[in-house]
């Protein structure tokens, strides 16, 4: 049954499905370090060999944990369109190296993020975030609530992308697909309604008002 709230979009960060590969068994901290080790160098070494090496490395890391390239690269059409447009723009400016490096580095960052989200369940991410943000208590900030907000943000991405798809289909059904305003308005209204419903659901379940891990 299709939701009243719209469909989901499985791409970009993907959905965690338990596995037995080494990345699934590794602590979240190790995966964070791997993520940084993949993403930070390509920001400083802006060359095509560095980008290519990072891309191969992240795909290899995922493959050795049972996530093969067909699944790893299932980012959704919108992300591939953005990467394609970025490459196309640099080709038009006669900069073929940038046409590979810019979208390539973006792809490295997305795949590294997917490495974390595909191999880590949201509760594990929540626990890790709460642990890392413990010092925030000194500033009077509740790390449980910040971690919950981050987890909700991650959970919202597929919904919001699905909402764009829904709005696009609705606009197409009425012959309005070339009008961006007709696409943007329902997406924004959906996003606000989604945030309100999520907030109401959290209040109804008493989550957020009580410390999550106390």
């Amino acid at each position, binding site marked *: *049954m299709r*939701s*009243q*709230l719209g*469909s*989901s979009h*499985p791409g970009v960060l993907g*959905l*965690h*499905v*338990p596995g037995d590969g080494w990345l699934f068994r590794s602590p979240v901290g190790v995966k964070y370090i791997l993520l940084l080790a993949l993403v930070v160098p390509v920001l400083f070494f802006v060359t095509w060999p560095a980008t290519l090496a990072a891309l191969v490395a992240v795909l290899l890391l995922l493959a050795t944990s049972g996530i093969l390239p067909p699944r790893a690269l299932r980012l959704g059409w919108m992300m591939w369109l953005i990467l394609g447009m970025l490459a196309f723009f640099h080709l038009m400016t006669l900069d073929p190296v940038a046409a590979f490096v810019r979208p390539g580095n973006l792809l490295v960052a997305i795949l590294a993020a997917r490495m974390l989200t595909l191999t880590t*369940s*949201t*509760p*594990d991410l*929540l*626990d890790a975030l709460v642990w890392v943000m413990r010092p925030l208590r000194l500033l009077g900030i509740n790390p449980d609530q910040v971690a919950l907000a981050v*987890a*909700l943000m991650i*959970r919202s991405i*597929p919904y919001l992308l*699905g909402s764009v798809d829904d709005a696009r289909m609705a606009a197409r059904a009425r012959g309005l697909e070339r009008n961006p305003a007709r696409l943007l308005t329902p997406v924004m209204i959906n996003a606000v309604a989604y945030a309100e*419903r*999520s907030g*109401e*659901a*959290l*209040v*109804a*379940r*008493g*989550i957020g*008002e*009580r*410390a*999550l*891990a*106390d």
Partner: protein
Amino acid sequence: MIELRDVSLVVPASRRGDADRSLLTDVSLQLGERRICVIGANGSGKSTLLRLLNGLRLPTKGTVTASGFDTASQGRQVRTRVGFIFTDPLAQLVMSTPIEDVELSLRSLIKGRTQRGARAMELLEQRGLGLLAHQSIHDLSGGERQLVALTSVLAVEPQIIVADEPTTLLDLRNKLALRATFAALPQQIIYSTHDMDVAGDAERVIVVEAGCIVADGEPGMAIDHYERSMGARR
């Protein structure tokens, strides 16, 4: 036991110059029966009444208490005792998969991640949802989602369950399954519905019309009153 004393709820007018809108007017109820159903036309105030019961909405006049706790000043205590189920389960499932959502409910009860995961799986298996534990909630049917929402609510062992039209989005098979599930639960359940068969499952039926209680009693009498007022019977 939930008690409403002289409860009114008024919301400000959406346009300047208009009068404020009264959603509920002087409602007093003692809700002690095991199964209580609230019926009424769209916009009659059913959902508002149910949302008052666990403090999702607060009265502008009067008091609402659940197990002796005031929803206005002791909301946290109320919500640990009164679980709420929405019409659309997607509105209340805040995590990506059933097991993650049930685990979220359990975070305040079980500290250890392994024990929490095991308990979440146990609860899902009790409802026949074990095989769906790691699927995206968007890939589940409406009935499966409603059962996951119910499992997440029951995970914290509330004394009372409030359900706002829980069968509205379900097909006949899932509706029957949810009615059977509700019938087997030991908790007090207060729910609203537009389905008179589902209303007939209750021990007590309350009819809401324009923010007022117009009938309250055993199902036969209350449903008859509602159907007459809707023109379904003469």
